[in-house]
């Protein structure tokens, strides 16, 4: 096209047209663009809809777990029942089992119902006691063992109502559903209604759900997340202590020092593949290696942490390598050019610049590990009741415990709908942790991101 002045229209030459009207091709192109934008918006809308539905389900089901119905009860701690010899010897007081406390509760419940002035066909104290959690006697005993000097006094207790009563106040249990229930009868609910009006039965925020220990099948009202939370905490300590140094060292070596050959290529491919291995495979590996071969204790957060470390390592390595790669090579040249050794160049210049990426990757990896359930099933962190707080740090690592997601799974498995409600509540707690960690990751990235 050298001859610009030529005005003989060749093949496909443009016809003179106005800029103010769209020609056919432009119209088609614009329509395609509009369509594409519409697809995008539709996709996002669908995504948002599902997210909203999920959040709605979680919140509407889960928030109820954070409140609990309590009954305020005056209990007379009779000396002749609890300390026959009257010498307040703690060993002798401990010998009285929870059965020894039942009569005290019976008396207190009967008195409470009589005082309320409700007409009820239920007369037996044993039946009336169904209003309270079956763990009430245990709580009472724990209080007396801790405060033996109160024996003989009349003490006001706030005792968790049974899960049926709790469910009635939350709308989960109705009179119709109770007709098929052996534990509680509609007549009980009349009492509850009256007591509620008098303020004896009250719903309030349940710290025990967040901080407390898990409870057995018969008393869902006392089950809490606290011990499992500690289990998760100790696991995360193990994961952080192992996967961060190993992962970062591996990445730095592979990215900055390792020669490019078939062997390092092989390692690289394997690391990428490890990231895609189903977590249950890591679980069975952990079972075989850590428990059966190395004889580490079962169900221990230490083992859980080791398994999750294996799972988290690929994530950390991949993200660390990506952030090392994103540091411009001119920085390495600059450092080498003034006579820094390779290691000095990496540690003085490359690593600090890659730090936000490494931290973000690590936190995301930890968040992933925190929510992981499948490998924990295989090393025995489910299927028992995590009812004891660890006694000290060492015990926290090696004594059997659960973890938050495992605890949720455990609750969801149990029959009582009160546990089901707690499973949803547990999910809220877990999500709060995950969201917090992600926010920290975003914050760190913003805070330390440097330009060059």
């Amino acid at each position: 096209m050298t001859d610009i002045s030529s005005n003989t229209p060749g093949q496909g030459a443009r016809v003179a047209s106005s800029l103010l009207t769209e020609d056919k091709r432009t119209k088609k192109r614009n329509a395609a663009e509009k369509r594409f934008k519409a697809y995008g918006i539709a996709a996002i809308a669908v995504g948002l809809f599902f997210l909203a539905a999920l959040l709605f389900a979680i919140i509407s089901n889960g928030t109820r777990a954070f409140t609990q119905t309590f009954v305020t009860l005056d209990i007379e701690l009779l000396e002749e029942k609890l300390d026959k010899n009257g010498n307040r010897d703690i060993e002798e007081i401990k010998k009285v089992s929870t059965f020894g406390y039942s009569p005290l509760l019976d008396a207190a419940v009967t008195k409470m119902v009589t005082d309320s002035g409700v007409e009820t066909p239920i007369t037996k104290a044993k039946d009336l006691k169904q209003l309270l959690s079956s763990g009430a006697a245990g709580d009472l005993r724990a209080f007396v063992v801790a405060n033996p000097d109160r024996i003989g006094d009349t003490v006001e207790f706030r005792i968790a109502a049974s899960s049926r009563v709790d469910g009635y106040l939350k709308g989960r249990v109705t009179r119709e559903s109770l007709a098929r229930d052996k534990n509680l009868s509609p007549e009980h609910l009349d009492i509850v209604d009256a007591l509620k009006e008098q303020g004896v039965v009250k719903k309030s925020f349940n710290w025990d759900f967040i901080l407390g220990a898990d409870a057995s099948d018969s008393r869902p009202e006392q089950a809490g997340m606290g011990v499992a939370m500690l289990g998760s905490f100790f696991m995360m300590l193990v994961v952080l202590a192992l996967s961060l140094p190993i992962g970062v060292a591996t990445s730095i070596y592979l990215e900055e020092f390792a020669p490019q050959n078939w062997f390092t290529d092989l390692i690289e491919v394997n690391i990428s593949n490890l990231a895609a291995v189903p977590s249950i495979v890591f679980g069975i590996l952990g079972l075989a290696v850590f428990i059966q071969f190395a004889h580490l204790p079962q169900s221990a957060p230490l083992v859980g942490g080791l398994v999750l470390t294996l799972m988290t390592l690929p994530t950390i390595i991949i993200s660390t390598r990506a952030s090392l790669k994103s540091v411009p090579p001119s920085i390495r040249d600059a450092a080498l050019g003034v006579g820094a050794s390779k290691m000095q160049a990496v540690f003085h210049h490359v690593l600090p610049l890659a730090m936000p990426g490494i931290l973000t990757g690590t936190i995301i990896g930890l968040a992933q590990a925190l929510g992981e359930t499948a490998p924990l099933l295989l090393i025995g962190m489910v299927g028992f009741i995590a009812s004891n707080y660890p006694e000290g740090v060492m015990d926290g690592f090696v004594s059997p415990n659960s973890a938050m997601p495992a605890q949720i799974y455990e609750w969801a498995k149990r029959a009582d709908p009160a546990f089901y409600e707690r499973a949803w509540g547990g999910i809220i707690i877990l999500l709060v942790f995950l969201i917090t960690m992600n926010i920290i990751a975003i914050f760190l990235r913003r805070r330390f991101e440097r330009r060059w």
Partner: protein
Amino acid sequence: MDDLRSVERIVSDDEKTKISAKNVQVYYGDTHAIRDVDVEIADKTVTAFIGPSGCGKSTFLRCLNRMNDTIDICRVEGDIRIDGEDIYDKRVDPVQLRAKVGMVFQKPNPFPKSIYDNVAYGPRIHGLAHSKAELDEIVEKSLRRGAIWNEVKDRLDAPGTGLSGGQQQRLCIARAVATEPEVLLMDEPCSALDPIATAQVEELIDELRQSYSVVIVTHSMQQAARVSQRTAFFHLGNLVEFGETGQIFTNPTDERTESYISGRIG
């Protein structure tokens, strides 16, 4: 080529050879990037490497401080001596070599740290300063040599990356001279700079000649003519011609040199 006059072109006969390269071959994998290069670089002179893109001038420059070691597939053969010592000898630690042979890169690449730390980094890792006062002195001296002291003396704590392009490049030069090198390699130091900054850097190069042997790779023939005493012309991995700058630009012996200088190839 009026600017040829800007540097007096007196190259005394008794000058000392700083770097001597003999029969240098460089391979990138199977590619033979540089063939049979023989160059003698004199002390306290500016030597320019010119040539079209991809002719190997930067590669050869990077051989002189073994920066090519960082490229896995690169292999260097031949004999390169600085003050008579073979720099590819097994006993030579490249880190020590690079302290002796400083380098300034094409793109200004200050560390994302303060101006002070940029310059102080080299002296720190080589232990050149024994006290804070000594280090301050080195930093000031280097920044003065880099002809940037007056512009930055009030904001030594400001990040080096916040300077303008020309200032950044002079900062990089200051950083390179802070380690007291004997040779300064410059890989197209002005290609990212505007004419004013270029003029400043060129002036600086001429001053640096008092203390160092400077080797500069450049795309601009005018620049080579302005700043250098000797010029080497590379073409397709071969050293075509090497001699006094005046001679190369006014009366080249090889016809390829002449074609390049007059703009027919490149």
